[in-house]
């Protein structure tokens, strides 16, 4: 009697589970192919872009992380992706650092909220290769060889130049580093973060170094400049954001050109300048998470980011996309946006991984003392 009842209960449970599991399996198998998206290294593995799009649409979601709407035009880029493919973009923690993106991938591993794709500073990208799945976009050849890892673990996506934004209503335009030491800039000059923590601030010290006649091997001249700036009472230890620029608290801001240009678009009187001489640039890197909960959507995002459409949106946002040469050659570049932005000219400098590492050690040792 007891046994029979148990059996009956089991049968009911099984019967109930059947449609559920059937349902679940159709969901997963919807791409109509038996492609394992987690190991796909190009759209061809899906039988072409249509196959990838179908697989991504079946997943329906894409988790991105650390992509602020006002950073290099990511707001429009995310919106266009949603509109074009009907895939919901879940944007988590827009303001966290690259290191925290990797930490999130660790902490959320196996959950459906884990990040699918990363946008990382170079130091963190090179340090986190174990977290990435190799993927090569359809226009792989348009990306210069020095801008990508050969299997596609990471690929440069866009760069800016380190620029100086200033409130033209209250301070004069700086034309050299030493200008900033003058009385006009009392308590006005700010960085986007602490250089021992944030890539943009690190680059600001790098720019000050090359502008002061130093080399990227040793950021000490740059640190010395900020020490002088601080002694002059001109350094403002406030994290520059769109809000501090709008409130007038940070009147002069060292930041990537795309961030300063984004502020210029919304804040009256905010202008952007670059100093004559060496121009400091640094690419950000796209990578697909090895543990992406939406592996197909993550790969479609890569295809999308390197498409002419999205690459042009970077230009609109004030950044220089990695395929800019191809865009210009093919005549598909958004010329109006590029004219507004201006070409990246002058002597371009970017630290190598070794230089970046050596300088971060120097900064860790000297920065706190320099600005206190």
């Amino acid at each position, binding site marked *: 009697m007891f046994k029979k009842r148990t059996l009956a209960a089991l049968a009911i449970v099984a019967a109930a589970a059947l449609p559920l599991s059937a349902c679940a399996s159709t969901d997963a198998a919807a791409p109509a192919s038996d492609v394992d998206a987690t190991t796909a290294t190009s759209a061809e593995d899906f039988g072409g872009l249509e196959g990838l799009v179908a697989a991504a649409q079946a997943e329906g979601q894409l988790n991105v992380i650390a992509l602020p709407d006002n950073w290099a035009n990511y707001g429009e880029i995310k919106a266009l992706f949603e509109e074009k493919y009907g895939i919901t973009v879940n944007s988590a923690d827009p303001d966290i650092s*690259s290191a925290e993106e990797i930490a999130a991938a660790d902490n959320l591993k196996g959950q459906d909220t884990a990040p699918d794709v990363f946008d990382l500073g170079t130091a963190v990208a090179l340090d986190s290769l174990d977290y990435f799945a190799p993927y090569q976009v359809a226009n792989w050849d348009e990306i210069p060889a020095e801008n990508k890892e050969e299997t596609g673990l990471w690929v440069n996506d866009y760069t800016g130049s380190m620029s100086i934004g200033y409130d033209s209503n209250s301070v004069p335009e700086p034309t050299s580093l030493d200008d900033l030491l003058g009385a006009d800039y009392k308590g006005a000059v700010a960085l986007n973060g602490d250089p021992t923590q944030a890539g943009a601030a690190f680059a600001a010290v790098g720019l000050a170094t090359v502008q002061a006649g130093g080399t990227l091997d040793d950021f000490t001249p740059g640190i010395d400049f900020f020490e002088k700036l*601080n002694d002059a009472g001109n350094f403002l230890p406030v994290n520059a954001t769109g809000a501090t620029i709008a409130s007038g608290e940070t009147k002069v801001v060292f930041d990537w050109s795309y961030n300063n240009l984004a502020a210029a678009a919304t804040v009256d009187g905010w202008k952007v300048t670059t100093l004559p001489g060496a121009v400091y640039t640094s690419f950000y890197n796209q990578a697909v998470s090895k543990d992406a909960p939406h592996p197909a959507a993550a790969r479609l995002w890569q295809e999308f980011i390197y498409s002419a459409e999205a690459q042009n949106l970077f230009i609109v946002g004030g950044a220089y996309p990695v395929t800019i040469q191809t865009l210009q050659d093919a005549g598909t570049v958004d010329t109006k946006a590029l004219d507004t932005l201006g070409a990246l000219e002058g002597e371009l400098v970017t630290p190598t991984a070794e230089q970046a590492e050596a300088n971060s050690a120097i900064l860790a040792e000297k920065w706190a003392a320099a600005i206190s």
Partner: protein
Amino acid sequence: MTVANAPVLLSDAGTPSRRRSVGLAKYLGLTPFAVYVLIFLAIPTILAVSTGFFTEDGSFTFDNIVGTFDPTVLATFVSSFWVSAVTAIIGAVVGALVCYAMLGTRAEGTLRSVVDSAASVLAQFGGVMLAFAFIATIGTQGLITVWLKSSFGIDIFAGGPWIYQVPGLLPVYVYFQVPLMIITFMPALEGLKSQWAEANATLGGTRFTYWTRIAIPVLAPSFIGSLLLLFANAFSSYATAAALISQGSQIVPLQIRSALVSETVLGRENMAGALALGMIVVMVVVMWAYSVLQSRTSRWQK
């Protein structure tokens, strides 16, 4: 008075036998709290601190512990210590004076209950909201800053934007230290019995001897205990400092943040565990001293 006391006496008499009969059950009653402390305090602490003893690849090392003795890191322990000490002393002295002033008011009076509730609320007012409140009022573009400058030509930041540096933490921390002192020290002051003053007077003592021979010795453990609590409170504060100070990571909690989130200085995640251990060592010493003093104080509060 007598009537009100009567039931208390009765239940006091009944307690010992009931306690015995309860036996194990009282430990059972403690279980939810013990489990809570274990899951949300003990285990996370052990996990966090133990990372300090490993490298990124998981092999055992003392490098991180040695790293806390690096001059730059030691300097942050020193500034954490003095910020906590200065704000604790200011908070304790000002708070004690407020308590003393309140003794002159009626215990059930409106003034005292208003100050009491305000202190309870303000003692918990910290973190980003507090930092924002200060930035909005006396930040470099704050309401009061701008008003002082435009109306009186006084520039409170003439010497540099101190509000965003370590000195800026002092007024901000004192803002929650004083109310915390009021709520912890007031019961001790209320515990001063008027009979003691009367006894002092009958035995020919003066007001001065009352304070030096009776009140201060009785209050000292409680005062120093509260002082230590204030110190611990400031020492462990993170969010307020994080919202105010964005350059330099001059205090230990900010060093921990930097070790965990930095995208330029990499591979220091495990250093955070060692720094946390350093903070725990300081806190354990302080809290141990607090509990010793507390047990001495409680004798006078019965």
